[in-house]
């Protein structure tokens, strides 16, 4: 167990370091950062001043180690555009994105789990086919477009929900639903596959032979074993959802980290972009790490792997 833990931790740390390097390299893609920061109408002197002010005149290796040594202690420098510390900017907006992600995951699970179980119990029957078809339809839905359609329908015509902003819990219903759509098909398929596997296992036959009720077999025996891969995928999906929230936050004008990222990208505010890329990668890595550990605790067989 300890060895498994150490190995997984090592990989997680290495992934974070790789992304750290990647985030640095990403912002140097355009060539001269100073020109981008100074803006299109700046003179040669302006650019020179910017280059000095942001330390861009130093050798690239020095800049890199400077950014890494600061980033590992949570100092991402100051935003070029917002004139504020990047860490403050992000942590002010993180709660909104996390709320959105968790609402999205909650909706996704509450739709995907029952549908997956029903689909598995009716494997190959029309109900199963219809549910699979619905999953395919959901998968094909462009999230930003779905957001706009919901805004027109529930915001404008029916007037049930607010169109944009973050004031109340109602503000999270539409964005959360849209975000959930991206995760439902994967979660549902996995639940279905897991349930089909579990239902054909020996211990289910034993349970049947013992004369347990169908409800008890499905809920107590099969669902518990089918849940494990779903836990991993749910963690991964939450990571993807937090990354994908950039589109939905922009559509619904939710001022979370995704919206911040979009603003800073369009304003050439590279310290902020770098920091958000890194932050999302770290969250994703922690989520998958957590899911792996949880699974190892639940299923001792995995620890050897």
């Amino acid at each position, binding site marked *: 167990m300890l060895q498994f833990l150490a190995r997984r931790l090592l990989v997680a740390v290495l992934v974070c370091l790789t992304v750290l390097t990647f985030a640095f390299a990403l912002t140097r893609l355009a060539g001269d950062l100073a020109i981008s920061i100074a803006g299109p109408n700046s003179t040669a002197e302006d650019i020179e001043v910017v280059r000095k002010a942001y330390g861009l005149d130093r050798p690239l290796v020095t800049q890199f180690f400077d950014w890494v040594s600061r980033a590992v202690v949570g100092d991402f420098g100051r935003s070029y555009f917002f004139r504020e510390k990047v860490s403050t900017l992000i942590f002010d907006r993180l709660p909104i994105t996390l709320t959105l992600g968790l609402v999205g995951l909650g909706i996704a699970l509450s739709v995907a789990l029952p549908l997956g179980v029903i689909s598995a119990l009716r494997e190959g029957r029309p109900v199963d086919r219809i549910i699979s078809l619905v999953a395919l339809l959901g998968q*094909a839905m462009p999230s930003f*477009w779905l957001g*706009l359609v919901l805004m027109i329908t529930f915001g404008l015509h029916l007037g049930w929900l607010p169109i944009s902003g973050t004031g109340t819990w109602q503000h999270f219903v539409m964005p959360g639903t849209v975000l959930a759509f991206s995760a439902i098909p994967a979660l549902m398929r996995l639940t279905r596959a897991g349930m089909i596997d579990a239902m054909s296992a020996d211990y289910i036959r034993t349970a049947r032979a013992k004369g347990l009720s169908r409800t008890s077999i499905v809920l107590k025996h099969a669902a518990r074993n089918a849940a494990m891969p779903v836990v991993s995928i749910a963690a991964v999906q939450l990571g993807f959802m937090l990354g994908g929230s950039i589109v939905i936050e922009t559509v619904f004008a939710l001022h979370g980290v995704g919206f911040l990222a979009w603003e800073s990208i369009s304003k050439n505010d590279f310290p902020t972009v770098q920091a958000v*890329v890194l932050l999302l990668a770290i969250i994703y890595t922690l989520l998958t790490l957590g899911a792996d550990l949880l699974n190892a605790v639940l299923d001792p067989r995995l620890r050897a792997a």
Partner: protein
Amino acid sequence: MSRWRSWGRNWGLWLGAFIVGFTLFVAIFAPMVATQDPFAQDLSRRLVPPSWMEGGRPQHFLGTDGLGRDYFARLVYGARISMLIGIATVVTSGIIGIALGVVGGFFGGRIDDVILFTITARLSIPLILVALAVVSLVGSSLTVVVATLGLLLWDRFAVVARVATMQVRTLDYVAAAWSAGCSQPYIVMREILPNILSPLAVVATLEMALAILLEAALSFLGLGVPPPLPSWGLMIAEAKDYMFFNPWVIMVPGMSLFVLVFGINLLGDGLRDLLRTGRVA
């Protein structure tokens, strides 16, 4: 029962193939399908509704956009962008992912560890955010979007190619090739690659659908295909300001995107079922 099921499967496969084939046809023969110029503006005829709605005009089948451009022509030329992005991205990411996956699965050991780590690191990188940042930094163009998506979307190809290679590597015909003294490159190219292509075909459809959706999202956020090119995502972005009074302006490109991606997914699903049953038989 089984006949009903196999009909049901083929039904999805054929519908998917029809949608994709039809879109491809429209994309290739766009100038013949749409007789109007998708770029010509006519400010005296802005936001004309589709011809079957009140106030529609027969010469603008799907109406016009906010700049008075013919919506049908823009939709038809937009199919070109989506198909081009989808196919070009799949080719790029497919080459990268399959190369990585086959190398990892074939050699195993340390090399495989490195490849597995590369896949893990790639998965941790937020896709849309990085794509947006790259396009914003390098400048938006069709080529940049394809290159960016191609460099990002190889993970599933790599995962599937790796596992499939591991399975094929241990099979008798590969052992036979070894004992016949075939070289490593020969075995990889002639014995392994042809035998892992079918699961990769399914991945290709998934990635194509994803690439088309991502391009639309990037263009929607203003950092994808640059205007005035008629990308469906860009059309939705341009129509957003009018959507509360003229909902059809976002319905037309949105539904097209939805149907195309659904078709590609149906095709992929159908292929998967076909291959699965084929393997059992």
